[in-house]
């Protein structure tokens, strides 16, 4: 009886979080055509979805942008985090960190508008490149934030020991530091991935010339009402995400078992 209320509370919270998604998924099988009443089971929306090449291209573009921007911003972000942590002066370090944090908290609309102005002044045509650059830019601070704690908790004696045993600076980086912060790097990568996948505000400003991402496209459907094949698409994306999470979990499990004793 003691554990009933906490569990009930937990179940309630998860219900609230997941109910809208399941509601949306449920109606993707509706033959009625609207979300107001369920008329019967059909897979027509899924068929329609796969015959709509324009929408498929947009989905793939969204995924490509997310993967590339996450990967590139992870590289830049890790280098940035290293630079911050090994900055000589304390005040210098804090300034860099604050500047990084400002970018995270500043509103997307402002970031998006400033990118639009920048790209038009520099003369970059709006499209794939502009979206990719913008996504990399807003993902870098997130990666930095995810990697920094790992660097901070790493004892400096590890580096001293490595240097003592004759490791070059490059060896220290690739054989000591990077392996130690790998979990942070992966966390940063996945955070950047999700930020890029669902970003609307920044993307909205920098898309153009036929290139759009899913969030912008769905938004522009609003005037004429959103068709149920968007529900079907959301269902597939949701299942895809679940699949990714489960996959990541198993990879994590496999890696952790043999390494557990060695690492600690």
């Amino acid at each position, binding site marked *: 009886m003691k554990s009933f209320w906490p569990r009930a509370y937990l179940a309630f919270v998860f219900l609230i979080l997941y109910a809208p998604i399941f509601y949306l998924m449920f109606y993707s099988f509706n033959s009625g055509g*609207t979300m107001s009443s369920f008329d019967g089971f059909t897979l027509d929306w899924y068929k329609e979805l796969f015959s709509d090449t*324009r929408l498929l291209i947009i989905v793939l573009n969204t995924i490509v942008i997310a*993967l590339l921007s996450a990967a590139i911003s992870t590289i830049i972000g890790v280098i940035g985090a290293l630079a911050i942590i090994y900055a000589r002066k304390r005040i210098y370090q804090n300034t860099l960190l604050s500047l990084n944090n400002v970018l995270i908290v500043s509103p997307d609309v402002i970031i998006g508008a400033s990118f639009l102005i920048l790209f038009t002044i520099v003369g970059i*045509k*709006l499209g794939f490149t502009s979206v990719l650059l913008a996504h990399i830019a807003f993902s870098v601070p997130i990666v930095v934030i995810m990697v920094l704690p790992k660097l901070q908790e790493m004892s400096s004696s590890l580096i001293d020991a490595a240097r003592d045993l004759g490791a070059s600076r490059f060896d220290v980086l690739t054989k000591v530091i990077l392996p130690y912060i790998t979990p942070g790097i992966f966390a940063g990568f996945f955070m950047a991935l999700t930020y890029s996948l669902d970003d609307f505000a920044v993307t*909205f400003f920098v898309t153009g010339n036929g290139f759009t991402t899913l969030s912008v496209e769905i938004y522009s459907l*609003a*005037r004429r009402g959103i068709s149920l094949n968007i529900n079907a698409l959301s269902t597939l994306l949701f299942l895809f995400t679940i699949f990714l999470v489960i996959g990541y979990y198993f990879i994590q499990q496999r890696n952790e078992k043999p390494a557990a004793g060695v690492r600690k």
Partner: protein
Amino acid sequence: MKKLMQALVAVFLISFLLLYVVDRLNASSGQTEGSTLTVYNWGDYIDAELIDRFEKETGVKVIYETFDSNEAMMTKIEQGGTTYDVAVPSEYTIEKMRDQDLLYPINHSKVPNLKYIDDRFMDLSFDRGNKYSIPYFWGTVGILYNTDEVNGEITAWNDLWKPEFRNKILMIDGAREVMGMGLNSLGYSLNDTNEAHLQEAKAKLDELTPNIKAIVGDEIRMLMGNDEASIGLVWSGTASELMGTKDNLEYVVPEEGSNLWFDNMVIPKTAKNIEAAHAFINFMLDPEVAAQNTEYVGYSTPNKKALEFMPKEMVEDKRFYPPAHMTERLEVYENLGPEMLARYNELFLKFKMHRK
């Protein structure tokens, strides 16, 4: 380190694989060689089959992009960095774009199909002589009501003031639409600038407040669809969509007069392929093409000849194709200038704050 490198390589490989797939899909949906045409239109506002057909007939590849509001579209064009060849703004935006020198004039000799457009919809106040714009779709503002809950017919704006409609009316959140309704119900023009008339209209609207359930935006479509209210002030496009799914709804263009709106095709200054833009506009005006497009979109076409290719019940529907004597009473919103517009907005705001 090895694990990181592997992951990085995997991510890049997957990305380039996907890019390749996108490229193949792009290639299969149209010719990659030759010229391209970028069309900027409202979401879901064209039959996609017609784009394929245009590509096959002309060999021009169409890049199709969508927007959700006139303001968003205009900003993108104003800002540059884009190469939209054809855009589809509403009439008041056309005036603004023309004044800011964002439009190329349309060469009528390259658009022979222009002759099929009904004279009623040519040479209107927002673009005299159709120098910059060609009508794409048109519609009205009117009353959508639920026949199960409303006894008898509604035919006029003044019917809404009946006490039996207490708390039953949904209004669209637009100053021109609501003030226009007030002015029309008194028999004035919806472009009226006479201060006394405006005050009179506002006072009349204040009397309507007990009947108003809410003043809403796009959600009016959903609310009416779910029977949340029995009467709504809507655009005809919204009405025809809803009536397609629900039998118990009826749409009426009020007899005192109402607004006539247009979405027109224009060639913005960002255009790179002006030749193909003219070809596309001409293609969309082809009667058969316009008929197919109209059946898909469900709005009213200005193409007179296209009506012959459309199902009879659609063409003879007086609610969406009102006869000439009715369209005479419909007016296009004129650009009243920023000061007058501010006055309209102010009165509308005061009306919204008026206590029941």
